[in-house]
């Protein structure tokens, strides 16, 4: 009997915590929207430089190989169907619409989101956030809103970098494995891939950036319990960011129809 009671209590605790987290995320998101008009511009530039510029090389490199992998996966089928003209479409369509934004989102959450949670969490447990509040500075103006805007903007910029890297990787691999000239690859891509395909990926990446920003800031500000607490917060943030990317992807795809 006590075993069943324990299970019910554990389920109840988890449900309550889930509801509290969802509510906390929603409140943080609304506060950020209200704070954006008065955010600290210097902090915005600093955050954008840190989140975007420093992530660009690793994102570009990863995307380059992803483009190559997509060509390698598609090549046997287009050869079998004797439809070599479809190789650029097969390699790029899913990359621009789906694989690129999701992969970059996951990398962004692992690199930038976790770093953001750790930094905010450390500021909370070492009372730096209290020190800001004591100076009559709203942490949302100085810390949260600039990071939110920087993450949304940099996620879109990094997706453009990643898309470019993936297309270059696909072109190089198609040239090496299928003998397709690069100008021909580009020409076929221009015929088969539409602006809407690129735009769809970029819109998704903007939403992913917002999701990662809200989740990573929420867990950072909710940190308690010293260094162990910071570790717990980073772990929760990475897991929740990954889940949010998939959920947002599903919702945006359903709404946009692709």
């Amino acid at each position, binding site marked *: 009997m006590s075993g069943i009671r324990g299970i019910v209590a554990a389920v109840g605790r988890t449900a309550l915590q889930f509801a509290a987290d969802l509510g906390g995320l929603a409140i943080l998101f609304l506060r950020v929207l209200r704070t954006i008009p008065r955010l600290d511009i210097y902090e915005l530039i600093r955050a954008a430089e840190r989140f975007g510029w420093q992530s660009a090389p690793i994102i570009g490199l990863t995307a380059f190989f992803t483009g190559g992998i997509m060509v390698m996966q598609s090549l046997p089928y287009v050869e079998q169907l004797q439809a070599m003209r479809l190789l650029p479409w097969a390699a790029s369509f899913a990359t621009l619409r789906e694989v690129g934004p999701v992969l970059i989102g996951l990398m962004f959450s692992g690199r930038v989101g976790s770093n953001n949670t750790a930094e905010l969490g450390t500021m909370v447990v070492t*009372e730096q956030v209290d020190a800001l509040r004591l100076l009559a500075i709203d942490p949302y103006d100085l810390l949260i809103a600039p990071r939110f805007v920087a993450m949304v903007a940099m996620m879109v910029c990094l997706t453009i970098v990643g898309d470019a890297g993936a297309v270059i990787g696909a072109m190089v691999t198609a040239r090496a494995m299928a003998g397709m000239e690069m100008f021909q690859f580009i020409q076929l891509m221009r015929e088969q891939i539409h602006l809407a395909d690129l735009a769809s990926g970029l819109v998704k990446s903007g939403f992913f950036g917002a999701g990662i920003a809200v989740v990573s800031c929420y867990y950072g500000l909710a940190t308690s319990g010293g260094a162990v607490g910071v570790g717990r917060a980073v772990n929760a943030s990475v897991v929740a960011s990954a889940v949010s990317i998939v959920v947002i992807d599903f919702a945006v795809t359903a709404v946009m129809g692709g």
Partner: protein
Amino acid sequence: MEALVDLAGVHLDALDGGPAVLDALDLALAPGTLTGLIGPPSSGKSVLLKLIAGLIRPNRGRAIVAGVDLLAGRAADKRQLQRSIGMLFQNNALFDSLTVFENVAFPLRRLPTPPTESEIGTRCKARIEEVGLGHAMDRFPHQLSGGMQKRAGIARATIAEPRLRLFDEPTAGLDPVTGARILALITELHRRDERGVTIIVSNEMDTLLAAVPRVILIDRGKVAWDGASALVDQAPDTVRGFITGEAA
């Protein structure tokens, strides 16, 4: 004289549902008060400082600081009040990404009407020299020892000439000589503005009792004893026991 800090029946519930953190606490501090706040671990000393600073809102009671009602006052008044408070936090709370100079200059640069950059430079350099960190102005917090971080924190807490100066464990973890030097610095800063209030949380009894004229013992969220440092000998056995470290 009207008290600068006026707390009556202040109550703060524990988040985990345990015993109250502050339990019907009464405290009145008139302008010019320099007092030590002592008490066992988790007795509510640091929480009391944060409550006075407007960082924690009490659940019940009357909490008026510099004429601002912390329970019912407007947010704008509370922000105004916080600009007149300087606090050294238990963890020093120096901003990791800023140098010592930038940390000390931060409160001045964030004033609604900040002084000129040259005035900020002059004032900050003078205060940093005063706390003995002239050689470390361009260092970041992680490049400082514990004592140096405390001194940088004191410089930042006092640079904007606050009326209410709160120091949470300014001598914790320091050797006796550095601790005594830091307390001497705090009392000297208080002497320069005797209209203000200075509260020092510390359990380094010998140095504290020598530095402050009044001591308040907080125990289980209440004021257990409030009296002159010189009269500690006449305090009840339990209080004397805590101060001298001997069982009552």
